[in-house]
């Protein structure tokens, strides 16, 4: 039986490499918010209230571009709706937690944390304190995101734009899914999702981020049926 402390630090360790892309991205997010002319306190408050990477930038860009609050809020909701899928996957491992603990741990569920904890959970299904791993990934992500966006707000975009560090974001997600390229069914699902996201990129409210996974999961269901 692994201890709570071990699981928490294991979670921190598993997500740490992703900070290579999260920290520059956070700095860029903070800096863009201020450059767009928003109140720095407001830009920072988003990191606590929304705590949702790209959706924070989209929100501010839409507002500064003259979109209505309704459009901006809807877009954030649509972009972040992918968490519903993460929650559905994680619920299997968090079932035994009390309602209050479920409410609290939900706040720190993020893309990279979900991905790394899910990988760990699949290999260690019988462990009792698995949620400490998710806390480890989530808390690490939260702390780094706060520091990075704050740094971007205070210091401006001191990360040289020529470096193109935004490119680190797709690379981080490539690192997450690359091992699944060994499985043909996963390769098909990935391509269906990727191609759909390009086809539906112009759909309103950034809904490509919801439409493509739904199409891809539908294809996954078909593949499962064919396998039998």
């Amino acid at each position, binding site marked *: 039986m692994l201890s709570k402390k071990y699981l928490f630090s294991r979670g921190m360790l598993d997500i740490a490499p992703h900070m290579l892309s999260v920290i520059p991205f956070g700095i860029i997010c903070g800096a863009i918010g201020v450059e767009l002319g928003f109140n720095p306190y407001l830009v920072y408050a*988003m990191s606590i209230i929304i705590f949702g990477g790209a959706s924070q930038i989209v*929100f501010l860009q839409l507002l500064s571009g003259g979109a209505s609050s309704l459009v901006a*809020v809807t877009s954030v909701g649509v972009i972040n709706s992918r968490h519903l899928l993460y929650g559905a996957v994680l619920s299997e491992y968090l079932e035994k937690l009390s309602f209050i603990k479920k409410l609290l741990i*939900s706040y720190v569920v993020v893309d990279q944390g979900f991905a790394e904890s899910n990988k760990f959970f699949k290999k260690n299904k019988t462990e009792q304190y698995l949620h400490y791993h998710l806390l480890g990934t989530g808390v690490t992500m939260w702390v780094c995101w706060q520091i990075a966006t704050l740094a971007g707000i205070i210091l401006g975009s001191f990360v040289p734009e020529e470096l193109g560090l935004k490119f680190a974001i797709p690379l981080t997600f490539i690192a997450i899914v690359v*091992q699944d390229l060994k499985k043909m069914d996963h390769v098909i699902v990935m391509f269906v999702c990727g191609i759909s996201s390009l086809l539906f990129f112009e759909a309103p409210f950034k809904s490509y981020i919801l439409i493509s996974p739904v199409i891809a999961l539908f294809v996954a269901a078909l593949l499962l049926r064919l396998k039998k």
Partner: protein
Amino acid sequence: MTWLSITIAGILTYFTRMTMIALVRRDLLGEKIKAVLAYVPSAVFPAIIFPAIFINDYGSYIEMNDPKIFGALVAIIVGYFSKNVIATIFSGLLSYWIIIFVFLS
């Protein structure tokens, strides 16, 4: 007004995180749905990866010889064999920088 919007956006986002974990009982999901859910990472992350590589800041498709495509391919190959996150990110960035700073400058 902006503060109110942010608060609502935050509450919405929190609900997307919390609903399936705290409000929906796992038993409601049948075995078939659970099997499909195993594909979630493969079905979600490419929707972040593909637009970030193939669509530029102005919303149009990039050229086939764009350095980002080369960087992504290097990252995929290095990631596949090294199974290492840092090596994947670094190799992708490095090959991207080599192209833009050495060959395109």
